[in-house]
């Protein structure tokens, strides 16, 4: 246990040094600032990403894949994540997440990969993107350099009763209920104005639907849909959609 604590502490120090180093660079050279960005500011920008992506030691795939070690990784190559066919194709065609391509993708995911399931409008401000990329880079240097990242550690809604997340859904019932979703959402996960909901981790699905049901999320159609579903029905849908390939 003590050894683990020490290990974490070392990694945190390395991260702090890295942050300091990058900040120093940005301070001394305006040109470099534009090129690399400020990871401390990037951490704030990352909040936009954190509802779907995790970073850090405890990171796991959620609605989006883990972003540790993203630099110079081939697109669509995280084990165990269900990518859209379009992103897989892009990876097969040789798309690699270097700084330039990350920047393009974050600016507008669908411009770079038209069929991606990443339902994100993009970040228009180049400085915000540079800061974000600088922050992401902290998690890519080497495995030893992955710091903790508290805001992304657990997907949660503080108001959500843990008992709701514990409900075991009935996937067969979920399949019937899903027919209602599939009037708008496509079962193959393609996304043309309405986001993909297939292959989401169960908890994320429940959290999102409960957020509509409790009127925390704003979309009116989804509030109506979720409002007409019981907790058991939401759990059943989550169980079904998690299985859909």
């Amino acid at each position, binding site marked *: 246990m003590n050894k683990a604590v020490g290990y974490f502490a070392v990694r945190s120090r390395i991260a702090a040094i890295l942050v300091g180093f990058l900040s120093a660079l940005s301070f001394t050279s305006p040109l470099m600032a534009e090129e690399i960005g400020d990871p401390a500011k990037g951490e704030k920008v990352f909040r936009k990403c954190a509802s779907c992506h995790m970073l850090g030691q405890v990171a796991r795939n959620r609605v989006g894949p883990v972003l540790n070690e993203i630099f110079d990784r081939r697109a669509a190559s995280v084990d165990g994540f269900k990518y859209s066919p379009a992103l897989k194709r892009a990876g097969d065609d040789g798309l690699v997440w270097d700084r330039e391509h990350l920047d393009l993708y974050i600016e507008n995911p669908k411009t770079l990969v038209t069929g991606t399931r990443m339902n994100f409008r993009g970040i228009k401000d180049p400085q915000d993107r540079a800061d974000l990329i600088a922050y992401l880079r902290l998690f890519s240097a080497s495995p030893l350099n992955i710091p903790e990242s508290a805001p992304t550690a657990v997907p949660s809604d503080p108001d959500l009763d843990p008992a709701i997340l514990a409900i075991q859904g009935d996937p067969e019932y979920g399949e*019937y209920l899903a027919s209602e979703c599939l*009037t708008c959402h496509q079962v193959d996960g393609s996304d043309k104005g309405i986001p993909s909901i297939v292959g989401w981790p169960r908890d994320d699905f429940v959290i999102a639907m409960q957020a509509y049901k409790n009127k925390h999320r704003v979309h009116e159609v989804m509030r*109506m849909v979720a409002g*007409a579903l019981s907790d058991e029905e939401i759990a059943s849908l989550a169980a079904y959609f998690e299985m859909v390939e």
Partner: protein
Amino acid sequence: MTIKLTRRGFVGAAAVGAASLAAPEVMGQGRPKVVVIGGGAGGATAARYLAKDGKGALDITLIEPTRTYYTCFFSNLYLGGFREFSSLGHSYGRLAAEYGINVVHDWATGVDRDAKTVALAGGSSVPYDRLIISPGIDFVEGSVPGWDVSAQNAMPHAYKAGSQTQLLKAQIEAMPQGGHYVMIAPPNPYRCPPGPYERISMVAHTLKATNPTAKITIFDPKAKFSKQALFQDGWERHYPGMIEWVSGEFGAVEGVRPGSMEVVVDGEAVKADVCNVIPAMKAGRIAETAGLTNDKGWAPIVPMTMQSRMDDNIHVLGDATQNGDMPKSGFSANSQAKVAAMAVRSALTGSRMFPPKFKNTCWSLIDNDDGIKVGASYEATEEKISKVDGFISKVGEDADLRRRTYEESIGWYEGITADMFG
């Protein structure tokens, strides 16, 4: 056999995981036969879900006269130049090849409810254990004096998508500068409540670019209409001075004269360059021929299963139904189809029965990136499909939300057509 249970009963049974509420009706040799009349939002969806979820247990025949189905929804966007006509067309190839549905391109001309067979115009007869009919709408004869289908070339309805839609677009494009577009709107109830007013928006969008001095008049027998405040606000913002809406209180249409392109309103002849007559509607003719309609011309249904109130072996879907609170829309028909498919499958194969769920949302486009929507959820009660909860876009929403609403409608079109045709 009809099982009558309260909603509570259904929910309870589903929750404890009862395998089935009904013993399979058809125990003889051969697969149970389901015939579906009409390949639109109701029929195509029902056939596909029966095939997909039945996994080969059912013998499914889909009877639809046209080989390419043009969706009525989004056909207004073609009039406005936002869609190609070809983008509205869908074939039945996948339903046949991938789902094993027997697609028969013919007209159903009659139903023998005792023998349980459907007669086809081609002369043959198709037997069924359960029949689903989703025939859409037909027009009430004489509802607009002087107009009948023989006048539909001079005064198109364009309310069944296809050649009529193309004809109306050609007439709009051929209008003289400063010409007059007249719409005679239908009385309630009718297919797609916001449809006539979205159409006016799309016609105005085209005319604003090509014929900015043209005028549009809507003669409407109704005192109010769907999304009225939203449409009128949009017309004011995008097409000021172009559109006049005249409700029946202020100008009752007494008839039309297709030969001279005139509309008679309160005894006076109004000249039109394009006259879009949308007559009163009733259930598609086969529902009437089969004896499933009431004195109002619509087919009443049992909300829990979408069975006809006249015949337990027949389910009716979509625009043709008198169901209670659900509007006549493609979304509604698609939603009802899934309830019917589940009920039919349960009755014929003993599969699980779940509580029915109904939803509808109607998106409309007013101008570039100015989309609006209205929707509701419904539940089945003994007497009707009853509205539970709903929403509608608001006047004064910001432009970004309106654009996203339009983008969402495009996503919905892709979704529902994939859900219908595979």
